[in-house]
């Protein structure tokens, strides 16, 4: 376990900024309970500083996880956001999209979001921007990128894709074996 290097930090922040934009400052500067980013194996964890200190006494090969896992670095050095990061992303999300109850299950099975399933969405979403998908009861279901801007999406066919899925909470069941090791 170690802090991120400058290079790594940049990659991670760029990715996060896709979804939460300037709100990233809330993640970095939490005065009451300072949090830190930690790299363990190829995974990035976001965790309270106190917890990170305690975790320091656990040997590297025995430390399986700490705090919240945001995602992992791929072999090519890119950063891939995991569904476990949804806690924080949904909290600070810039663009939001709500799906109707009949769209919940299709999305949780790993499908993209169709026009017909959209209950409401933020007004100002541009094309290819990161967004968080909620159920109508404001339960975060996953995240993705917009296929069209909000204005374009208004005139789409009901079967057209509005947002591409990148992560959904159904992965807890589908990818349990690969997601956490």
């Amino acid at each position: 376990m170690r802090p991120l290097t400058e290079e790594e930090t940049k990659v991670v922040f760029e990715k996060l900024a896709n979804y939460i934009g300037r709100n990233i400052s809330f993640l970095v500067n939490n005065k009451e309970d300072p949090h830190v980013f930690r790299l363990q194996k190829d995974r990035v964890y976001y965790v309270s500083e106190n917890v990170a200190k305690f975790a320091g006494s656990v040997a590297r090969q025995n430390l399986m996880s700490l705090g919240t896992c945001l995602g992992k670095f791929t072999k090519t050095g890119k950063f891939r956001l995991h569904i476990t990061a949804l806690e924080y992303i949904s909290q600070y999300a810039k663009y939001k999209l709500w799906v109707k109850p009949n769209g919940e299950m299709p999305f949780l099975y790993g499908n993209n979001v169709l026009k017909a399933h959209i209950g409401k969405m933020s007004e100002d979403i541009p094309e290819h921007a990161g967004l968080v998908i909620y159920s109508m009861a404001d339960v975060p279901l996953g995240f993705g990128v917009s296929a069209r801007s909000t204005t374009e999406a208004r005139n789409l066919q009901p079967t057209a894709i509005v947002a591409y899925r990148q992560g959904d909470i159904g992965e807890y069941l589908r990818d349990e074996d690969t997601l956490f090791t």
Partner: protein
Amino acid sequence: MGRKAKDKQSAPPSYEEFHGIQKERNSKRSRRAKAIENSASKKPKKETSPSPKKKSTKVTRDNLDIEEDDQDLPHVDLEELNAAKKSLFEDSAEEDDDDFQDALDADEFVDSDEDEREKPMFSDDEDDDLEELNATNMEALSRKLDEEQELEALEAEEELVQTNVPEPRAIVLPTPEEKELEASQPPDLTVVRTRMIEIVKVLEKFKILAQEGKSRSQYVDQLLEDICTYFGYTPFLAEKLFNLFSPSEAIEFFEANEIARPVTVRTNTLKARRRDLAQKLVNKGVNLQPIGKWTKVGLQIFDSQVPIGATPEYLAGHYILQAASSFLPVMALDPQENERILDMAAAPGGKTTFISAMMKNTGCVFANDSNKARTKSLIANIHRLGCRNTVVSNYDAREFPKVIGGFDRVLLDAPCSGTGVIAKDSNVKVARTEKDFIQIPYLQRQLLLSAIDSVNANSRSGGIIVYSTCSVAVEENEAVVNYALKKRPNVRLVDTGLTIGKPGFTSYRGMKYHPSVNLTRRYYPHTYNVDGFFVAKFKKIHSSIHDESKAGAKEKEAAARSEGAEKGIIKDDFAHFDSDEDKELIETSFKRNLKRRGINPNAKNIQL
């Protein structure tokens, strides 16, 4: 045919007979007449006169069947039945008085008449009477008849029960020949079951019910054998579990192990409230209700139209599927905010996430599991439920406190034989051997000592260790706790703070445990409908040198091993003999004795 015919056909009596019977007949007649006048309801009662005969024959013929019937209905509340019967009897006693007398008379009458055709005449007789009355109130009459029949049936049944009681020393145990025959055939489960219940009955009132010349152990052996055939346990395990309970409770326990416990979920208070969650699930077609008063986060699921482990709420981490018994150790642990807590055997994370939720994501929770594959599900649950204050490690738990110590609270839900969760995993019935009950407690002892050493005795709010297992075996519970109390005098058992549960055993089959062991709590499937479970809560009073120990799992294993090897060997160092010194002592006491007897010890030629 009426009374006239009867009169006609009676054989001419002798003079004495004539006089004697004539009187009776007269009295009977008058009474009969009265009875008819009084009410039609009484008439059918005359049928009771032949019924005792019927019953008695039935009793002798169906003796076995009856017993079986009894067994087939083990849940019949005999008291209630008796009460009902009693009331029936009381009702009938008054009004039947006449009728019984009547019946008696009738019997006598018939006997004296000695005519075969005379007997059916009674029914005809009654028919006649009925016909007379039918015209006016046939419906009421027939209903009353039905009632009477019912009552009679009840009485008959009652009588059967009663006839069983005075003949208690029923032969329950099979003879060797019968056993051989049984062994050659596939087991007849109903017979085995019947016999089990019979034996339990006998064992409960052994002095009264036992067969002459049979010992208690013979009954117990047969019962254990039957339990093995009926429930499919190994003889070893059956005996081990049987010894925990009284015979009838043991049967209840074994039966409860055949039934699955209800599905329960725990609301994740980090993300949802129980009422909201219940509402959402009900809308999805789930039939549920709160588990009980002792928990505010548990819901019991009866049936569901959707898979309960794949709803959007589940995936969003609003609840976790968790056995009700798993709430108990965490509730006993009672984690407080901003503490540092260790869960030594955490996977799959039900308890860890509960701890985290109770701490409202403050402080720090170390979740350790020795099995790397199982940490996967642990991490998944931690993330799904949104626990942010956790550190997941993969150590042999005995490595603590070497890795990190000084925790405010430690939860040790020890790996165990699983004798409390046979309903979940029936493999336990055959897989567990005697060896397991030596090896598993051996590990548990080391783990518990490590848990105790990992706690900070000076913690302001904590200093608590909770030890739990999902086993009911004493070896894994009270014995381990007792061992820890002996080995670590700096801990005390304290009340678990749980409202339900039975106190732990302070003595078991000749083993005496520390009296405070009764503060531990036991849970059985047949009493609380939760998995069999055990919870003990320690408070660490002050620190010890062991807390500083840098011993890892290997060192602890070696220490435990050498300790085991040492055990039972009498060492030479407890005393040594010096025969010269002893000689002097013997002499003085000898002299003193002589003095006491009035003999001068210094005199020569003392005769002993």
